[in-house]
């Protein structure tokens, strides 16, 4: 094991609070033990933040869980050294582990949004940490809970403590979770993907919160697949791939001068202003360009004054109010906004899957939302959709083949042979092998599923595709491939995209024009450059400023 493989103390003195050497973790399978983490080593000092990055399945979470003795069922953990605060934890009893967890090592789980007991008030969850570690007095606990919640930036903590997770926003939930992790002033906080699934603005707040802990001398292990997040907080980075550490070193060094090819690909895959018009993934997707009749120029999809209200227990809730847009042929219109801002509702209105309360949608110059569904059915092949969650958009009983066949317009391909040929063509367009046809979507990887979803959308040969969070669930590298694929397809088929995402970088990367939504309203619109370079509306400005950037980009910006 070379010294370079583990991040040694960089200019820091003193004993590391966490010291790991030669960590291997395997899981017992029927076939035997399969290692998923190989030979991981690192040291972590007080007040230091170590980031572990890598794509999905690279062993980040397993490594993290091992640090608190919760690796998992049938886990086989081997390590040359596993020291916490100078003491070997390898032989720790269950009881000792329980005393350590929460009190000395705080842990923020990956699935933050579902990691709080949904039936209990969040205050009780934070309180539990205190109760488990010797805070006998109820009143003192309560007071401490309020103090903690306030400290992590929960406004009107007293009221919030009494609310359940489903009554809180993602950011507040994440903060409550962090509050419970730091409740007992642990020496180490392990934060597994603490900002995934958060809006940019909230993400920035959470990162600030962790930075604050760091300042107070807490050692932090930050796990993320998002390099831009890492760039903001970490002192050192550990890049993992396939369960191995492929590169490690100080953050700036790794991000600006990556040595390993994998790290480089990872960095290149992050979309944003720099990547506009460029490929994100190294290998070009295999696209069969298909000659196609030129679409008439001009507007393909046009909405004006859309309003949609939903009845709720509290009364009526306006999800979309006064939204207008027009999508031009062969172009991409991006819609960006935080969660709940009405993006998906706008998409459903555009697809005429739901009727607007006010306003109209025209498709290819003809009325679309105003006509009865029976008349629309015939024209639905003109506009396709790639839904937010690909998996749930497939009938679980159907194979990929059936899914795609079902989407073929009946008239175009009559014979089985023709249909077969069309399927092959579609698969080639989205870069999938033919052998996925027989498989169930469940058994496909996220990227494959998204490709199937795109293939289905392409099957009727539409002119407009509505993409609702088409890449949100994907890893950066997979996301890069899919974004490249979309771009290729647009070029080859002359498609028009209505592209919806909460990720500013992604929207910036793909869009010609951008709509920024907040609370159901469009607060800003214009060309991508205008919106992102010269934001007018305060909200947009806030969004853009909160946009995390890679250390490398930062450096460039500073240089400019």
């Amino acid at each position: 094991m070379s010294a370079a493989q583990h991040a040694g103390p960089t200019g820091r003195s003193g004993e590391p609070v966490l010291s790991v050497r030669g960590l291997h973790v395997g899981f017992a399978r029927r076939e035997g033990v399969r290692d998923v983490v190989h030979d991981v080593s690192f040291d972590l000092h007080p007040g230091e933040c170590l980031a572990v990055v890598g794509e999905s399945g690279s062993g980040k979470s397993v490594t993290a869980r091992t640090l608190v003795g919760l690796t998992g069922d049938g886990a086989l953990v081997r390590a040359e050294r596993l020291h916490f605060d100078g003491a070997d934890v390898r032989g720790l009893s269950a009881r000792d582990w329980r005393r350590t967890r929460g009190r000395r090592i705080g842990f923020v789980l990956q699935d933050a949004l579902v990691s709080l007991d949904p039936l209990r008030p969040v205050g009780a969850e934070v309180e539990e940490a205190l109760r488990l570690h010797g805070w006998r007095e109820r009143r003192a606990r309560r007071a401490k809970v309020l103090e903690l919640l306030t400290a992590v930036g929960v406004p009107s903590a007293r009221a919030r403590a009494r609310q359940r997770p489903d009554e809180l926003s993602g950011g507040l939930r994440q903060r409550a979770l962090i509050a419970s992790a730091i409740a007992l002033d642990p020496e180490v906080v392990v934060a597994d993907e603490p900002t995934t699934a958060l809006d940019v603005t909230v993400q920035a707040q959470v990162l600030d919160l962790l930075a604050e802990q760091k300042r107070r001398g807490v050692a932090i292990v930050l796990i993320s697949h998002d390099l831009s997040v890492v760039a903001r907080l970490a002192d050192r980075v550990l890049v993992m791939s396939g369960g191995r550490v492929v590169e490690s070193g100080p953050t700036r060094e790794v991000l600006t001068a990556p040595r390993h090819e994998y790290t480089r690909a990872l960095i290149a895959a992050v979309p944003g202003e720099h990547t506009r018009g460029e490929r994100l993934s190294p290998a070009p997707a295999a696209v069969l360009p298909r000659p196609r009749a030129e679409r008439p120029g001009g507007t393909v999809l046009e909405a004006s004054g859309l309003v949609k209200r939903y009845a709720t227990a509290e009364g009526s809730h306006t999800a979309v109010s006064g939204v207008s847009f027009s999508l031009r042929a062969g172009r991409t219109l991006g819609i960006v906004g935080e969660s709940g801002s009405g993006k998906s509702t706008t998409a459903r209105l555009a697809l005429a899957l739901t009727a607007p309360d006010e306003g109209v949608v025209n498709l290819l110059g003809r009325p679309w939302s105003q006509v009865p569904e029976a008349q629309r059915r015939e024209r639905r092949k003109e506009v396709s959709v790639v839904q937010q969650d690909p998996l749930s958009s497939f009938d679980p009983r159907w194979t990929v083949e059936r899914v795609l066949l079902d989407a073929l317009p009946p008239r175009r391909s009559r014979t089985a042979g023709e249909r077969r040929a069309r399927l092959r063509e579609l698969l080639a367009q989205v870069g999938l092998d033919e052998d996925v046809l027989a498989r169930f979507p469940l058994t496909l990887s996220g990227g494959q599923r998204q490709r199937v979803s795109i293939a289905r959308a392409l099957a009727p040969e539409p002119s407009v595709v509505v993409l609702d969070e088409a890449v949100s669930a994907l890893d950066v590298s997979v996301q890069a491939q899919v974004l490249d694929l979309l771009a290729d397809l647009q070029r080859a088929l002359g498609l028009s995209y209505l592209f919806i995402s909460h990720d500013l970088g992604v929207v910036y990367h793909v869009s010609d024009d951008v709509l920024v939504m907040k609370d159901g309203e469009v607060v800003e619109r214009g060309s991508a450059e205008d919106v992102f370079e010269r934001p007018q509306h305060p909200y947009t400005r806030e969004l853009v400023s909160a946009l995390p950037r890679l250390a490398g980009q930062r450096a460039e910006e500073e240089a400019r």
Partner: protein
Amino acid sequence: MPASSADAPAQVDARFSAAPLEDPGARLRRTARRVVSRLLGALLVLWGAATAAFLAQAVLPGDRATIIFNIRAGQPIERTPEELAAINAQYGFQDPVLTQYLHHLSGLVRGDLGESYQQFRPVTDVIGEQLAPTLVLTLTAIALAWAGMVVWVVLTAGRGRRTAGLGAAVDTATAGLPHYWLGIVLLLVFALQLRWFPVISGNSPAGLLLPALTLAVPLAGFMGQATRTEFERALQQPFVLSARTRGAGDLAIRLRHVLRHAALPAVTLSGWALGATISGAVVVETVYTRAGIGRVLVTAVNNQDLPIVTGVVLLVAALYVVANLLVDLVHGLVDPRTAKGGRPS
């Protein structure tokens, strides 16, 4: 058998950035609206049950006056019109069906359930005096079932193949125990051999345990099956791991977090059990010699003592309505998320 998986919890929703602080007037209005609609629903159910009972009587074979007469006499023979005239006149059996139905309904509205054909007593009396023993029996049984089920599930669910398998097998086996068999066996063992309990339970407190157990054991198995599935599902939820990272122990997690998540199907089942008592209890009442609605119903049906039958049907419907309300209430307490929009299903 209510489906547990069907009552999907409200989808976790990050959209409400914070619960809006609502004005109390709106909440009051909403509550009032819900109460009124619940009441209307309850009335509809009662009306439906009363109508069903009436229709059932109308379709039953045989001349009602003859039956009443024959049962009073203990002889199954044909009667002459003269013999039946008095009874027909007394109960209005000669009237058109619609008249009888309206008469029946108007009686119900006045709270008059009529008089037993065989006991010559008001139905409200007959049922009233049997209601308490039945309720005591059922509620005790439900409580026992809960206790047993909770202990068993918490001890065995999700604890490795063998233990969990055993736990599930015991659930299934107990759920499949017929009441009358279990009842007799418990009686012979605990009352006759060991003399721990009286053989004839009557309505004594000491005599309550065995009959309640007889009802409780299969119910516990039944509830256990549903609870176990949910329990094992909940054990895999991230918040469990989250609690562990705070240093919580296994038992504490099972009791404080997981149990509550797994309890909902059992709550629903308890409500159902409260309503279904009548059918289950008759067996236990017979074996243990307890008074109760079950035996009243069986006797009444055998005697075609229709006012009592109708009375019991209405009572059960009312119990069902109450049980449902309670279940909703408890649902709301256990899972406050459902309280907002009302119980799905």
